[in-house]
């Protein structure tokens, strides 16, 4: 049995996870996303990663970007390194893909905002 706190939304439900055959039983979650989170946290933990990349010709020097879905925790360090090497050119639209299918995870890095 393991206690954990759900991080899917700011509510922070206190979850209890118990192994049950091949999978896990989750209690304490107020929504189905909590169950999915708990099982994933036991098998393959993932996180949303917000950061920035360099932008040229824009209002600012940095463009905020974010994973379009949670990415496996083990890739976070490599993702940050990859983002350090990225330079985009303005204009950029919010939601535009900056890095596609990074490390074959099906996770895209997208622009958090538009920048002229």
């Amino acid at each position, binding site marked *: 049995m393991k206690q954990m706190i759900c991080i899917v939304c700011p509510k922070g439900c206190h979850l209890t996870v118990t192994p049950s055959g091949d999978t896990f039983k989750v209690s304490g979650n107020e929504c189905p996303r909590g169950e999915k989170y708990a099982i994933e946290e036991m098998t393959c933990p993932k996180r949303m990663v917000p950061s920035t990349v360099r932008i040229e010709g824009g209002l600012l020097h940095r463009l905020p970007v974010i994973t379009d879905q949670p990415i496996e925790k083990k890739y976070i360090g490599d993702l940050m390194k990859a983002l350090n090497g990225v330079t985009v050119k303005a204009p950029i639209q919010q939601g535009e893909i900056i890095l596609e299918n990074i490390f074959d995870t099906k996770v895209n890095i997208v622009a*958090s905002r538009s920048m002229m």
Partner: protein
Amino acid sequence: MSAYDLVVIGGGPAGLAAAVEAYDNGVESILIIERDRELGGILMQCIHNGFGLHHFKEELTGPAYAERFINMLKAKGIDYKIDTMVAEMTKDKRIKTMSATDGITWVQAKAIILAMGCRERTRGAISIPGSRPAGVFTAGTAQRYINMEGYMVGERVFILGSGDIGLIMARRMTLEGAKVLGVAEIMPHSNGLTRNIVQCLDDFEIPLYLSHTIVEIRGKDRLSGITIAQVDEKMQPIEGTEKVIECDTLLLSVGLIPENEISRALGVVIDPRTKGPLVNQYMETSLEGVFACGNVVHVHDLVDYVTEESIRAGRNAAAFIKGRQFKAVETYTMTAPGEGIGYIVPQEICEQSTDDTVTLLFRVKKTYKNARINVLGDGEKIKSIKKLHLAPSEMERVDLKLEKAYQQLTVEVEA
């Protein structure tokens, strides 16, 4: 002198939502005045996700949340001026603005919405002893340098204050390659969201020192180290618990204060508890036709709540412009924080029809478990709500229908 029906001071989430709502309620002549180089306010540097769950029913980053409102504003053709400071306002609603391009100009308004937000408490506000080297930043300043300007602020970092901004910056600095040595919190519990403790500290094995504060800052030109110490229940450092930490950067996340210099100069009554303008249920200040919303009124936990409050201000400012006088009533009810309550917004309720709902927003002074929130009308209990958990970091609300005109509404905690 130019003239608008409505002038909104501040183009952050509060000002944007208020302007859009006023427009949707039939006021087309609107000007937003913003001192920064673009609209959006502090949301533009809050690049993490977690915004919009209540208002948009999805999870957005700060810039994406702001962009939704900026797009609405632009689609409606609402005027705005950026890089422009408001220097002064007069009681007959003339506004003096300054900018590098236009110099000093005056704008005449029929109604004003104050939406200037808040600012961070600094080292001076909490009086940490020691020398005054470079490398001591408020967490929000560091956030702006890193996320918008592209400057890294340091390599070995310590953070004072475990509110959400402090926690978010612990992760941000770590991801950008800095070593975050710890977060100290003077209270015995963190004021941040639990999920931020997990994903910002635990994920990176950053220690959280509860009931600790900083007792010394050292360094000649650049910060070279700090000393932290445990505090007793009176928040006084305990001798012998000192721990020296070598670091080149200290981030302070030690609270926010509504920014009301120009409101005070205008003569708006300020509530000493919230440090924001006293408002009625229409978000109108002590001056008729001057409204206020968002963090300039009281510091909110979530931008979604700022939006909700600002929509109310925008709608009522539009009604005022169309001739409704909220203050032309016979009776007023004052709200009063009772046992365990820090403040209540609104501070004043104008007489209204018994069908209208009044929303009281408030904070408790300390944490409670299994308590009740009671609302008393002139001493008589009119509402009682059971609460499993109450904490100062979480804003509470009660929605009420007032069946009669009370002189005073008291909110109290029954432990």
